[in-house]
């Protein structure tokens, strides 16, 4: 099987969908001519194949980029627009929160908005808090949006292809730290359903629910704990909205213990939602109190030792698991 970084997998998904459907176009800052001449980046080479009609470099105008998607989607196109970094979502948020998410409802179901907003996210690049801020909980809180956060290159390909074909607005958040490490990716047509979690490692002793860049941390912790005889089951949500409650509850039913792991800050983070689902619908399954392992409630700092302190590590996850075993 081909091995691709997540950026390349996204590129392949975009390329295949643009070849398949002439109504798909991409737009954003530098999606055509980029300051990064790097084949590991998601939109590399698409301008050359599809031309400037379908690969639209825009001014630095996040509200207009998102509005372009909303208007064009209602008119029958399938826009895939890019907000360069997750924190810049704030500049596009009216179009996403008040329009992409609500206009179908406000039309009484007459209009559809088949659009995808791609955003790069995640700490670890030393860029500081205005480029590295995981805001998935903000969009997950808005009814009318689907929220997808792949952790592997294969899932990124399969989920983006599904997102482009979905008739609803999909917020697709990519962790930059995953762009560069090659991972196996199926060639050709490969669709991953939105709304389905996946058990990335089976286990019997404790469930770790995670997503996006934290899957690697969970896998590393599970390897170490396996050497101590502790079998960790890792559930990769892949999609936050709609949330695959069944997969979470099925795993907790098996292990009786839960740790939720995410990179985003703790207060109001999506981990609280996962915890609440298990408390409400699976309380009797729990043999011990659940735990959350998250970024601390601080902006992501730039200095490498401070940034490393921010990002949850496998040592923290292992400690949390041992607390409840």
């Amino acid at each position: 099987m081909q091995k691709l970084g997540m950026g390349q997998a996204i590129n392949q998904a975009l390329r295949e969908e643009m070849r398949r459907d002439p109504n798909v176009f991409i737009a954003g800052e530098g999606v055509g001519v980029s300051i990064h001449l790097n084949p590991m980046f998601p939109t590399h080479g698409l301008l050359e194949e599809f031309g400037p009609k379908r690969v639209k470099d825009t001014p630095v105008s996040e509200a207009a980029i998102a509005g372009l998607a909303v208007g064009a989607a209602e008119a029958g196109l399938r826009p895939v627009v890019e907000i360069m970094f997750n924190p810049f979502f704030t500049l596009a948020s009216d179009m996403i929160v008040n329009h992409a998410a609500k206009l179908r409802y406000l039309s009484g179901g007459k209009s559809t908005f088949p659009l995808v907003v791609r955003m790069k996210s995640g700490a670890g690049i030393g860029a500081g808090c205005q480029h590295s801020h995981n805001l998935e909980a903000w969009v997950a809180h808005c009814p009318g949006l689907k929220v997808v956060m792949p952790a592997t290159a294969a899932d990124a390909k399969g989920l983006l292809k599904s997102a482009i074909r979905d008739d609803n607005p999909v917020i697709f958040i990519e962790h930059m730290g995953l762009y560069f490490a090659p991972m196996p990716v199926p060639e050709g047509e490969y669709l991953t359903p939105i709304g389905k979690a996946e058990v990335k490692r089976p286990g019997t002793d404790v469930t770790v629910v995670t997503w996006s860049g934290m899957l690697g941390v969970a896998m590393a912790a599970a390897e170490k704990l396996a050497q101590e005889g502790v079998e960790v089951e890792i559930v990769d949500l892949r999609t936050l909205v709609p949330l695959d409650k069944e997969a979470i509850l099925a795993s907790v039913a098996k292990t009786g213990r839960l740790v939720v792991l995410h990179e985003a800050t703790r207060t109001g983070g999506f981990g609280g939602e996962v915890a609440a689902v298990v408390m409400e619908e699976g309380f009797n399954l729990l043999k011990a109190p659940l735990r959350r392992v998250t970024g601390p409630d601080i902006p992501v700092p730039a200095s490498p030792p401070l940034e490393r302190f921010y990002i949850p590590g496998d040592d923290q996850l292992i400690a949390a698991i041992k607390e409840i075993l």
Partner: protein
Amino acid sequence: MNIPEEKQKEMLWTMLLSRRFEDELAELCKIEGKIPGMTILSTGQEAVGSGACAALAPEDVIISNHRSHNHLLAKGADPNALMAEIYCKRTGCNKGKSGTLHLAVPEVNAPCTSTVVGAGPPIAVGQAFAQQYKGEQRVTVCFFGDGAAAEGSVHEAMNLAALWRLPVIFICENNVYAGAQRYEEHAPNPSMADRATAYAMPGEAVDGNDALAVYQAVRDARERALAGEGPSLIECKTYRCRGHGEADPQHYQPKEEICAWQEKCPIPRLRDDLLSQGLITPEEVRDMEARAEAVVKEAVRFAEDSPFPNPEEALEDVLVA
């Protein structure tokens, strides 16, 4: 001015209809519990929507704002479905989900009324982009107020539309007031149309109480857009005769100012113009007025007789299944 006779009559008709429709709403909203939420009327500004929409083809798109009733009626929206939606009934054009403020009538290519001030222009840009992308002979008109022009999103939209030469017509309905603030309290340049220069697009200010002038400006802008020449900005200078909404006592609007503008009402202006040219007879005018009365009466009856949605219908239409 070379405006077809039937277009002139159409403008008079849609102005009469919206005025009658909104006069009725002004009374209905005084009855406790009759009209949920806010009531925001365009009384005195009808020449803008009626003049602009008369210059459009049915396939052209309009994007509206919180002061939308005239725009939508002029675009051909069904008064019954509109009134029922304003009543928040199930038979409303949006099944009671939008109410008076967010009316969406995609069947007449009026897919979005946004009450977020300044949100319309970026969406209009998206619609116009789709029209250009598909090579269609259609344009998008975006109505927004002088208050909205202070939003950053309006700048972003105009810049992008001009850059990509999109077939969009920005219509700034300058009604002198943004909330309680007069124009000169929120805009340093007395001409909103001047802003077009910054985007290298044509900008024109017209008498917004003259439906024929609005028609002419929009028709010209539409022809430019269809010829691939890109967007235009038209500032329609008019006046908000009523409050921001019906709950607004207008204590900050001088009475003499309101009276002076009521004298400039766009409806008798066009009516008398047509009568003096012999394009319409007094009898035809009386017929039109009677028809507007009947249409609105029927819309109110339809809305009154319609059921409210069942509470659990609130859960429908969030996502495509």
